[in-house]
């Protein structure tokens, strides 16, 4: 399974890429493989404040709707219009073009409390 080493992971299968105070969030390769065939992504409103663990977006396959949780607290500052237009990007490029939203984080130090790639790999093995 592909879990890039420069990312942090939540137990609920979101990944976080922190650059300055901006955290980009998507779902892991493992999560997209479990969901298969993402056909719809519901994005949060820009400007919305979220706490860690809040349902923030929805990713739907043919069979089921799955909440995507904010891995850390912050404010939604950008969403990815490309996954709205082409939800399959979540399957084909989960760590790249398949990103879902960006948060301006409350406290960047909280990101380090999330799992590293090795710990996440152990969780899903």
């Amino acid at each position, binding site marked *: 399974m592909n879990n890039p080493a420069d990312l942090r992971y939540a137990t609920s299968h979101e990944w976080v890429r922190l650059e300055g105070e901006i955290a980009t969030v998507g779902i892991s390769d493992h999560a997209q493989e479990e969901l*298969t*065939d993402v*056909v*719809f992504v*519901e994005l949060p409103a820009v400007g919305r404040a979220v706490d860690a663990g809040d349902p923030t977006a*929805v990713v*739907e*396959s*043919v*069979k089921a*709707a799955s909440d995507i949780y904010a891995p850390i607290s912050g404010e939604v500052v950008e969403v990815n219009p490309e996954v709205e237009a082409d939800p399959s990007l979540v399957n084909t490029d989960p760590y790249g073009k398949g990103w879902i939203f960006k948060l301006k984080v409350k406290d960047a130090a909280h990101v380090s409390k999330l799992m590293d790639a090795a710990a996440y790999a152990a969780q899903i093995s």
Partner: protein
Amino acid sequence: MISEIKSSPLEAAHVVLGAKLVPFAGWNMPVQYTSIIDEHTAVRTACGIFDISHMGQFIASGPTAAAWLNGLLTNDIAKLGIGEGQYTLMLNEAGGVIDDLIAYRTGETEFFLVVNASMIDEDFAWMDARKNANVTLRNESAQWAGMAIQGPTAVEVFAKVFPDETLPPRNGIMTTAAGAVVCRTGYTGEDGFEFFSPAAEGIAWWDKFLAAGAKPCGLGARDSLRLEMGYPLNGNDLSPERTPVEAGLGFFCALEKGDFIGRETLARQKTDGPAVKLTALRYLDKGPPPRAHYPVVSADGTVLGELASGVLSPSLMTGIGMAYLPAEFSKIGTPLQIEVRGRLFSAEVVKKPFYKPAPSA
């Protein structure tokens, strides 16, 4: 009552193929192997194979079996010649649906019935309690493995596995030289057949159909395929509180054949017109996949009912669903809305089927 989850006789084959198994109607069944969309597309363009071992098989026989079944089922079983089958429904006294099934005449006084997995025990108890001394009813559900081979190339798959046999005509049934049962029926709208063998031989047959070109498909694709055709699923679109007339299945209710359980309600509804109708809805724009229990709302914002079934149609790439709605909202072209997580998405009433398969060559 705690009931053990049942395993299909084909389960070992599914595990080898890496299927995702989920509980369905008391059975541990494959929901998908690789991708619901890929599996769906395989059935629409080539050939897929589904494990339907969970479905039930009853044998009804005896000198008065035909008349007895005609008192329990909506369609006219007297119209079946030997080797012919028909879609039919079993109703309660109020005309509500207990189950929908296919009845085949396998002999002058013998019938093969294929019923829904979730209803095997209830159907059998209902029928057994109403049989007479001249009728024998056997539940053979545990003895049979079942497969549905479906798609425009299903006929070629059949010819590879059975070079010396001929497929029966539409809705027909036959027994192969090896003792398996072949029915020219399905639940996808495509050409194809359903195949029943003794349970212990199931995996060997499954492997032969795969080698002949059928792609393994799970219950996820089975659901999206049947819903594109507007075929009802008992438990979602059919229930003891809904009649076949309300479900749009009046064609399969032979009111002229004489009395049968539930007939009175159907006759009244056919004369007066049903107050509610199972109505086909289609999104006008892109939106989240519609799913069962999502509210259906009129153009002016009144909640009219809820979806009985819904799916993002892989063939049409748009949301489709069916809902029991007041008859005045069931006319083709009526604008409606489907509520998803508090947001309303525009839809309109359309004619069934949602999708028309290409005519077979």
